[in-house]
């Protein structure tokens, strides 16, 4: 209890937008109690309220996803797990539950991408966007400090091995940062929310159906045209779906 109170106190200081720590704690406890007692619908509603007020808490998304699983709403559950992973990418419970829920879906998509694409995705998904940027700024800080010390001391070689190494690391983390930026904001993840969704060869109802997929399937949105989105699947299939059929993983 003391621990929760401590956390809430800190949360109150750090997140001024949060109504009050006590309200949040009460709401969270009520949601957890509802979940424990099997009232998953009520628990889901309470978790949604918490997320509305404080969207960047992974536990809220994770717990909401669990409630959705219990209610049989797999697409919403997967969307919430994906959001939780965005905020807490190294959480084993979230990954495991996501994997489990994906196993309950009617449709499954083979991942036929090249190994290096898979590896890159795995690396970039290991940290949040903000964590990667902090990494970039930290290395930049070391690099700038080294440069300043060089001019202040007035001797030595600026482009010494240490500075070169730091610069190399800086380039590397910048590259990772750019990759994360692309992953988060250019290739946007989305989840199919409809029970059955038709992907077409073009952005209209007149275009022929390219393939069908079911709820919970993860797609990558690569283009937008009015209320249509062009999606790419991990098996290489591509097609246009209505925007209302999918929900973007965005926190």
């Amino acid at each position, binding site marked *: 209890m003391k621990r929760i109170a401590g956390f809430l106190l800190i949360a109150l200081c750090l997140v001024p937008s949060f109504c009050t720590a006590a309200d949040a704690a009460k709401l969270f406890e009520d949601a957890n109690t509802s979940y424990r007692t099997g009232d998953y619908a009520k628990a889901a509603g309470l978790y949604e309220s918490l997320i509305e007020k404080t969207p960047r808490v992974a536990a809220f998304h994770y717990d909401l996803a669990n409630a959705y699983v219990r209610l049989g709403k797999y697409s919403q559950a997967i969307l919430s797990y994906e959001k939780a992973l965005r905020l807490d990418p190294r959480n084993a419970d979230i990954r495991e539950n996501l994997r489990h829920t994906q196993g309950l879906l009617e449709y499954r998509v083979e991942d036929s991408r090249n190994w290096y694409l898979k590896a890159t995705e795995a690396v970039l998904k290991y940290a949040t966007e903000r964590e990667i940027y902090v990494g970039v700024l930290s290395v930049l800080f070391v690099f700038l400090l080294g*440069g300043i010390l060089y001019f202040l001391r007035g001797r030595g070689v600026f482009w010494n091995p240490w500075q070169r190494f730091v610069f190399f690391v800086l380039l590397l983390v910048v590259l990772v940062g750019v990759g994360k930026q692309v992953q988060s904001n250019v290739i946007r993840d989305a989840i199919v929310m409809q029970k059955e969704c038709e992907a077409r060869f073009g952005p209209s109802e007149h275009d022929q159906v390219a393939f069908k997929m079911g709820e919970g399937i993860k797609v990558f949105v690569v283009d937008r045209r009015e209320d249509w989105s062009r999606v790419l699947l991990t098996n290489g299939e591509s097609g246009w779906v209505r925007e209302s059929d999918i929900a973007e993983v965005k926190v």
Partner: protein
Amino acid sequence: MKKILIIAALILGISVPTLQAEEVRVSASVNKNTAQVGEEIRLNIRVNGQAMNLQAPRLPKLDGFDAYYTGRASHIAFVNGVSSSNVEFSYTLIPQRAGHCVLGPFEIPVGQSMLSTEAVTLDITGGQAQPASPQVPTQPLPVNAPMPPQAPQDETVSVSPGTDDNIFVQATVDRTTLYQNQQMLLTYSLYTRYDTRYEGFEKEPETSGFWIEEFPMDREVPRENVRMNGKRYIRADVKKLALFPTAPGNYTIQPGSLKVSIREEPQGNNAFDEFFSDSFFTGGSFFARRQNKLLNPPPIQLVVKPLPENGKPAGFQGAVGSFRLSASVDKDKVKQNEPVTLKMVIEGEGNIETITRPKIPALTGFKTYDADTNSKLYQTENVVGGTKSFETVFIPKEEGSSFIPPLEFSYFDPRQEKYVTLQTPNFPITVEHSEQAFQMPKELSGNSIFQKKVKSEGQDIRYIDERLPEVFQAGIVDKIYKILAGVDLLLGVLLLILWMKDRQDRLFSKDTALRRRKTARSAASASMHKLKRLARSSKDQDVAAFFVELEKAMTHYVADKWDLSAYGVTRQDLESTLTAHFGAGDAHLKDVFELYRLCDESRFGKGSIPQASKKIGLKIFQDTVNRIERMRR
């Protein structure tokens, strides 16, 4: 060494033909002149003299006898520089009926001529023939071995058309209909009328769907004389396999192909061929010409029946054969949580490897652990069997009298065609009280076999997270991000400034005139501050100091701007420089000159200079600096 000497002697004999030609003589003899029907008689045809390259003579058809060529032997001798040689061809004769016989004379081709032996007489008596051991080929089946004393038996066998009926292989099974997991014996029997060597399998039998145990064959394969289709053969069982079908159904066994080599008749025309095909070395087989043959027995059809469902015991786990069960415990009186080991031994005929551990019923008073399993396989005659032992550790949990209940082992006996269930005895165990809580016994804890495996019992999502740490963590990361961004921005600006300053310093160090020109304004500004302070002073002595400072500032500024020596510059230099840049008639230039005059007046004390002149002087200096700065741009 002996062989080398003989080879050398032979070479010498050929290369140095003493050729003390000797007359060639042929003779025929038998080892006995009286024999019974079926009893072997050895016929030797001997050629004496220089006639080494002889082919074995073919005997004419001998009425009333079976005849086999069994080999040859050569002898060379050097006596007092004179060589002599003889070749002896051996045959085995088996009389078929009684009576007085005259064999021969036999004709032997020697060179271009045909020589004849004398005739041989034999008296064959009737009655039961004694078991006979025919002279085996020089290098017969796998190794030389005494032939079992056995009378030839007449059998009938079909030989595939187009094949050599003097040598063939039979692959036979002891049964063609059997139960699943019941043993079947597959035997490969080689029948030959040649001097034959078994070389092994060229193609292994195809026995998918069978569990196989191969019987080890003796180094000396037993052989026997048999009679088939009216011919006499030597038979040897070269391979035996025990097959256990793993599933019911119809099967076809492809027996594979065997490789044998048979000895050819000597065909050479020179002394070497004859010599090396002789039985002098290793019975004549090492250098003898041999011909390889592949023997392909026909496929075998089998029907494997499923085990009957009727009467199948609940604990039956697939054992087929004939088995016995025994069991023992290592102690019958223990303390609580002290292990008792039950050892069960299953022994008998059948596929012992497929026997699994008898199931242990759920026991409330014991913890049970499966321990060691050992099996030992053996083959006796044509049957595969063995023993398999299972150890189970029982750890009693409660004190008092208890017992290890009987454990059951069931098997199907194909001979009786019924299931048999065996039971271990009921082992009473007396458990004494002990205060020690249960723990894995030391002797068991080091052995992973005693540890139960952790395995998944089901699948579900993991539980919700009821903590709120992310609020704190997310805030920290955000704050660190913002602080770092700000600090990095400041450091970046600072680094840029330092870099520009460093670049300027490097430039100034290379070009002094540039440095003076660039720093002239800042030096003038510094002087300006001092002059303003002096201008504000109302003291008389500060008036002189003001003009002295003003002249110095003006001179330094102009000298820096045009790279003149600040200390060696004359008034004339200054005036000419300023005139050159301002123009001769420039009004401000006149003010500058007037200012210099005022400075001189102040320095040399010609009358007092009013306080107001300081402001005028300061203004002229400022205007001059501003104007020159504008000019330089």
